[in-house]
């Protein structure tokens, strides 16, 4: 069985890991986040295009999902094929709570996260003790189980039609999510905050514990780390961010559909990580934007979207063998090194 060599320093993807080197402080990251938010928030003023806003909202949903997946894959070496289940849980959880109970949106939001945390803890406790490819299989199995349950429990979930009838959007704190611009700003805020929090996780001592586990879990336990607990913790944390992505999606389409829990979401998550690169923090974000652009342009040009996407994947997997951000970072480093040599 091929070992998941991400556990050996990321060499399998042909990249030397450079992400850990940045010494940017917490405040630096917060400033960048604020600047990004300001830029995003001003887009509706500069451009009147609804399509652009929709695009950014979708990027927020998938970007959070893909980045959370990278917490597992890139930083801990846990390749989950079933991460999409939490995206779906977020969408359905939030949708159901809003439809069935009259609670305000913030409460529904928190409640969804709590439900996700509970489910993730149970599933994670079963899965994380398994080795590599078996972990991947079982997470996939759980996801498909959840998907099947969503499909068959029609009385609760609407079956293959999904949650119909729209999701109520009562105003809260003066924010009205049925207003498109409000929805847009909220999505951007969730994205930026989510990324900031995930960034803090990766740059915290816990983040380095994860890297140690990824590189050499045996040695990590000989350093005194409880590997199982660390893996379970990150599994649950990643699930939470994935489900926020699902909530954004549910808000955006005002519903929830079984596709949100289908394994193709997990597959796209993995593909996004490959496209953007797993060794940088923002790689998955870049990958998300790329995939969505690819999605939109190709479906507009041809009905044979599959072939185009397939060829693009092959290009990255066999040709480049690394993600875009990895490529960019390596190119930058090479330029810097050769300039140093030239003196």
């Amino acid at each position, binding site marked *: 069985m091929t070992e998941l060599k991400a556990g050996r320093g990321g060499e399998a993807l042909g990249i030397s890991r450079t992400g850990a080197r940045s010494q940017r402080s917490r405040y630096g990251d917060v400033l960048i986040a604020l600047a990004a938010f300001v830029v995003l928030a001003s887009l509706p003023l500069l451009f009147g295009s609804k399509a652009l806003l929709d695009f950014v909202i979708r990027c927020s949903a998938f970007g959070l999902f893909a980045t959370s997946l990278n917490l597992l894959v890139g930083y801990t070496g846990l390749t989950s094929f079933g991460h999409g289940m939490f995206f779906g849980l977020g969408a359905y959880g939030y949708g159901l709570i809003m439809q069935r109970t009259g609670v305000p949106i913030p409460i529904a939001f928190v409640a969804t996260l709590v439900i996700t945390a509970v489910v993730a803890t149970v599933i994670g406790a079963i899965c994380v003790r398994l080795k590599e490819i078996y972990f991947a299989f079982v997470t996939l199995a759980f996801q498909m189980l959840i998907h099947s349950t969503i499909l068959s429990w029609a009385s609760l979930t609407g079956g293959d039609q999904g949650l119909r009838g729209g999701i109520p959007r009562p105003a809260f704190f003066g924010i009205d999510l049925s207003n498109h611009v409000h929805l847009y700003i909220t999505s951007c805020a969730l994205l930026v905050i989510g990324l900031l929090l995930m960034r803090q996780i990766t740059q915290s001592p816990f983040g380095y514990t994860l890297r140690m586990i990824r590189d050499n879990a045996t040695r990590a336990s000989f350093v005194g780390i409880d590997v199982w607990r660390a893996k379970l913790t990150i599994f649950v944390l990643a699930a939470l961010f994935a489900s926020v992505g699902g909530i954004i999606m549910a808000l955006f389409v005002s519903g929830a559909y079984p596709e949100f829990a289908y394994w193709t979401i997990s597959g796209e998550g*993995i593909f996004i990580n490959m496209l953007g690169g797993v060794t940088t923090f923002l790689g998955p974000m870049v990958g998300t934007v790329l995939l969505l652009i690819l999605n939109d342009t190709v479906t507009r040009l041809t009905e044979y979207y599959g072939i185009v996407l397939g060829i693009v994947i092959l290009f990255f997997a066999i040709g480049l063998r690394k993600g875009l951000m990895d490529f960019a970072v390596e190119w930058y480093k090479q330029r810097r090194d050769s300039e140093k040599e030239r003196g």
Partner: protein
Amino acid sequence: MDLDALTGCLASSACLVTQTTSGLIIGMLLFLVAVGLTLIFGVLKVVNFSHGAFYMFGAYFAMTAYQLTGSFALAMLCGAAGTAILGLVFERVFMSRVYGADVLMQLLVCYAFVLIFDDVVRMIWGPEFKSMGMPAAFQVVPLFIAGGVVPPYYLLLIGVALAAALVLGLGLARTRIGKVIRAAAHNPGMVSALGINTGLIYGGVFALGGGLAGLAGALAAPVRSLTPGMGFSVLIESFIVTVIGGMGSILGALIGALLIGLIRSFGSLGFPLFTEGLMYLFMVIVLVSRPTGLFGREVA
């Protein structure tokens, strides 16, 4: 959930026979697909996520051959041989580049081909459901066993699959080629050092695995409808079968396939909407108690 239908059936011998036969052919078809998957994993250490495509091509090749020649035997042959060649080419040109790479990388290459193959089929044969129809030779009166209906074609299918299983099992255990393949699974470096072309072995195993899946598709063509997405659900199920049975174990693939086939057929009586869910639940239960599957071995 319709437990009465289930218990009612278990009590009636006619229903029992019908459902069991139906479960058997589902299982046998799955076995042919899954055994290829498990073989490829056992020898090449690669999980071939595009395996469903071979099943699909087997069906389409068979249908076209039958439409052109009217010969059932030729159709089966085309189905199996065509996909065997496809498997060989696929392995030599693409898969051989990602051996030793991350599972991620292999998954992506296979995922890419699933997308490409599905569209290719759509382009050549069109997206609508197609059917091959039952060949004249088998349009006969079904057999009645203990009151249950058993189409003779089903018996042929089961027979062919069992024969394939036997040949495969004996072939790997007794023949020289079989020994070489098993050796290559354990220690490719050594095999290569002995002067045996491991590339040929790998290509051969892929051709064999693909060909078996293609055979399954060809056998299924008279009794299933053909559509570009058909490889997909078969892939997921054969995946479940291999994982339950144990990656790399032929016996495991057989037992696993039969179990899944029976769960499907009886399960669809009692749990018509949750039949898939039953399979996944079963997979979860098996994996949690025995991560390597029922007959699997820990691969280092």
